[in-house]
């Protein structure tokens, strides 16, 4: 039991008892081990089995008690009922209703119909014969309230009371309950009017049926006026009234107030025979003006018309120039063009110009084309035009050069510029001249062709001149040969043009260039100054090192010396730089660009880049859309080719 203590802690009994007392428990029931087993068992038994036995006994006792109580209650209740019955019997004498019914039930217990019928008959007979004896008792015992009896003879006589029905109807019924008819308080209809509900309903039904029978069906094919013929104005309602006369005799009478009533009811009389004026017939269709349809042109016509518009320009332009041999140089030979146009005209003529309208239209088109031609320009056309113009002018010039008088035009100015150039650059070597001459004739550029053409012309001249003589034209040839090749690049082209005077540098561009040059000069100056100083610094360092001054110093001293030197040099450099900035003239250009790439002026810049960003609010929907549209148009415009 407690032999194997092991590592288990255990409190002694005394300690345990102390603990138990402190906790509020009973102290241990200590006894010997041998005894302990038994009491243990006992304790166990009382704790579990014995308790059950006790419980069982208790329960049994409880049940006993309950049973006894119940019986006693029963007995008492029985006694009570018997006592009550006795009391009742003493009070009541004779047959009670219950007895009667019970007796009846006994009698009627035999459920045969025949026997029951006989019984009932017998009872009825008995009842008739002996009315007085038993019922009285019954009545007394039952204590019924007697039915209310109306007095047979009333003090008030019924004479003069009116009934709202016909005499015959009243007679036909066995029993009739008449009620007073509802009427207005102030309305005085000669007194009260009694009426029977049933008879009134019957009459109403009767009337309704008659009306239904009378009203004829709708005859669709009859004229409007005849529908109303069947309508009969309501008859004057004359109610049949009976009056109770003397000694309760019914007298048929007529209601005298009906006439008044009928007059009141009629109101406005309208004769329905007058036909109403028919409404004006409304047409279902709206009033529409029928427009004369235009004659539609066929697809063929329309196509031809379009071509005409386009080609008419050329037609017109060529018409002015005519068949000149110089027109051969253009990209699209005039001959070919004219052939086309001739074909077109033939096509036009082939159309049946039946009516004057068509002819007029054709003429109008031609006129319009002529107008258009004045506006639209295409490179080839321009080239052509200019060339032909020039040719004509040249011709005129040549013609007129014989006559006295000078004409100043482009060619003239060009030649003058040539002379100018010739004066400026007379020192080109002959070798170059020779080499370049060979290449000159191979111009293939597509710049504004008037240049090219004008180049061609003087070249020819120059070539001609050169063939003839050497020295005097050599100068011009020099100048011409000096020209660099266009194949050199865009820069060379630009220089050529500049020399010719075609491309003029504007004043502000020149200003800009000047400023840039200035800035560059200044910048280089600054750089040089700085570099110089750096050189000197380095040189000084070298000297210090080589002189051996540093060897005599300790590390710390060396560091200090170096620090001082650095400071000195830095100061010097800074000073020099400051001096440089004395003549610093920068060109400051603040450009504001928004997210779409559009350059903004001061107002817009403030608006979009500052104000909107600061407040965090942009423009509204309409405004932004407008802006976007503008930007789009701008971009589109930029992308468009110049000549269209």
């Amino acid at each position, binding site marked *: 039991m407690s032999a194997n203590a092991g*590592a288990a*802690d255990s409190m002694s009994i005394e300690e345990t008892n102390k603990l138990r007392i402190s906790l509020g428990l009973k102290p*241990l029931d200590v006894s010997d081990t041998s005894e302990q087993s038994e009491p243990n068992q006992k304790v166990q038994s009382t704790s579990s089995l014995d308790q059950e036995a006790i419980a069982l006994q208790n329960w049994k006792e409880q049940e006993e008690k309950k049973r006894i109580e119940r019986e006693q209650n029963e007995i008492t209740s029985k006694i009570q009922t018997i006592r009550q019955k006795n009391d009742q019997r003493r009070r009541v004498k004779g047959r009670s209703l219950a007895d009667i019914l019970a007796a009846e039930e006994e009698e009627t217990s035999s459920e045969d119909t025949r026997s029951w019928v006989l019984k009932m008959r017998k009872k009825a007979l008995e009842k008739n014969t002996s009315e007085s004896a038993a019922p009285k008792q019954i009545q007394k015992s039952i204590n019924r309230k007697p039915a209310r009896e109306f007095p047979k003879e009333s003090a008030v006589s019924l004479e003069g009371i009116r009934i709202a029905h016909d005499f015959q109807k009243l007679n036909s019924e066995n029993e009739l309950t008449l009620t007073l008819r509802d009427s207005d308080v102030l309305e005085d209809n000669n007194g009260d009017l009694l009426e029977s509900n049933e008879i009134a309903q019957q009459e109403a039904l009767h009337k309704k049926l008659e009306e239904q029978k009378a009203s004829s069906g709708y005859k669709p094919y009859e004229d409007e006026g005849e529908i109303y013929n069947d309508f009969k104005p309501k008859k004057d309602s004359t109610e049949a009234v009976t009056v109770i006369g003397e000694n309760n005799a019914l007298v048929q009478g007529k209601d005298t107030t009906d006439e008044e009533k009928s007059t009141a009811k009629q109101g406005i009389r309208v004769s329905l025979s007058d036909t109403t004026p028919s409404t004006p017939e409304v047409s279902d269709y709206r009033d529409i003006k029928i427009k004369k349809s235009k004659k539609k042109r066929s697809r063929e016509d329309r196509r031809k018309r379009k071509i005409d518009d386009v080609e008419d320009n050329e037609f017109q332009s060529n018409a002015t120039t005519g068949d000149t041999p110089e027109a051969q140089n253009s990209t699209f030979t005039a001959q070919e063009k004219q052939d086309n146009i001739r074909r077109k005209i033939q096509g036009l003529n082939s159309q049946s110009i039946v009516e004057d309208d068509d002819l007029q239209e054709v003429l109008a088109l031609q006129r319009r084309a002529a107008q258009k031609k004045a506006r639209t320009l295409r490179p080839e056309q321009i080239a052509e035009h200019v060339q032909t113009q020039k040719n004509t002018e040249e011709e005129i010039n040549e013609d007129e050069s014989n006559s006295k008088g000078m004409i100043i035009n482009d060619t003239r100015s060009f030649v003058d510029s040539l002379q100018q150039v010739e004066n400026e650059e007379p020192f080109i070597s002959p070798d170059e001249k020779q080499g370049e001459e060979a290449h000159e004739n191979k111009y293939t550029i597509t710049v504004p062709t008037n240049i090219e053409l004008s180049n061609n012309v003087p070249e020819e001249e120059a070539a001609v001149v050169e063939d003839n003589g050497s020295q005097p034209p050599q100068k011009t040839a020099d100048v011409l040969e000096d020209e660099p090749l266009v194949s050199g690049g865009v820069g060379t082209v630009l220089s050529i043009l500049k020399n010719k005077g075609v491309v003029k540098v504007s004043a502000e561009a020149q200003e800009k260039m000047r400023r840039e040059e200035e800035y560059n000069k200044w910048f280089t100056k600054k750089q040089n100054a700085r570099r110089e100083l750096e050189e000197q610094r380095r040189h000084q360092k070298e000297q210090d090192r080589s002189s051996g001054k540093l060897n005599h110093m300790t590390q710390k001293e060396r560091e200090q010396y170096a620090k001082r030197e650095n400071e000195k040099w830095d100061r010097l450099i800074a000073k020099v730089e400051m001096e440089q900035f004395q003549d610093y003239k920068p060109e400051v250009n603040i450009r504001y660009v928004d997210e779409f790439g559009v350059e903004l002026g001061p107002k817009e810049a403030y608006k979009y880049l500052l104000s909107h960003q600061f407040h965090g609010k942009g423009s509204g929907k309409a405004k932004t859309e407008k802006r976007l549209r503008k930007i789009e148009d701008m971009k589109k415009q930029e992308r468009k080719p110049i000549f269209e």
Partner: protein
Amino acid sequence: MIEVLCNDRLGKKVRVKCMPDDTIGDFKKLVAAQTGTDPRRIVLRKWHSTYKDNITLADYEIHDGMSLELYYS
């Protein structure tokens, strides 16, 4: 009086003297006094059934020398 063993399986082994009609709650108090813990935190178990506080040791049929498992909640 019976003596019941309570084993912690972590080094605590206690032998408690008590009466069979003591409730588990009282028993727990005794155990707590001997082990030095809070009686409310002690949970006595036998395999997976936890012993409830209001039932006596006799009803649980805990006899002399039986061992219970001591856990802490």
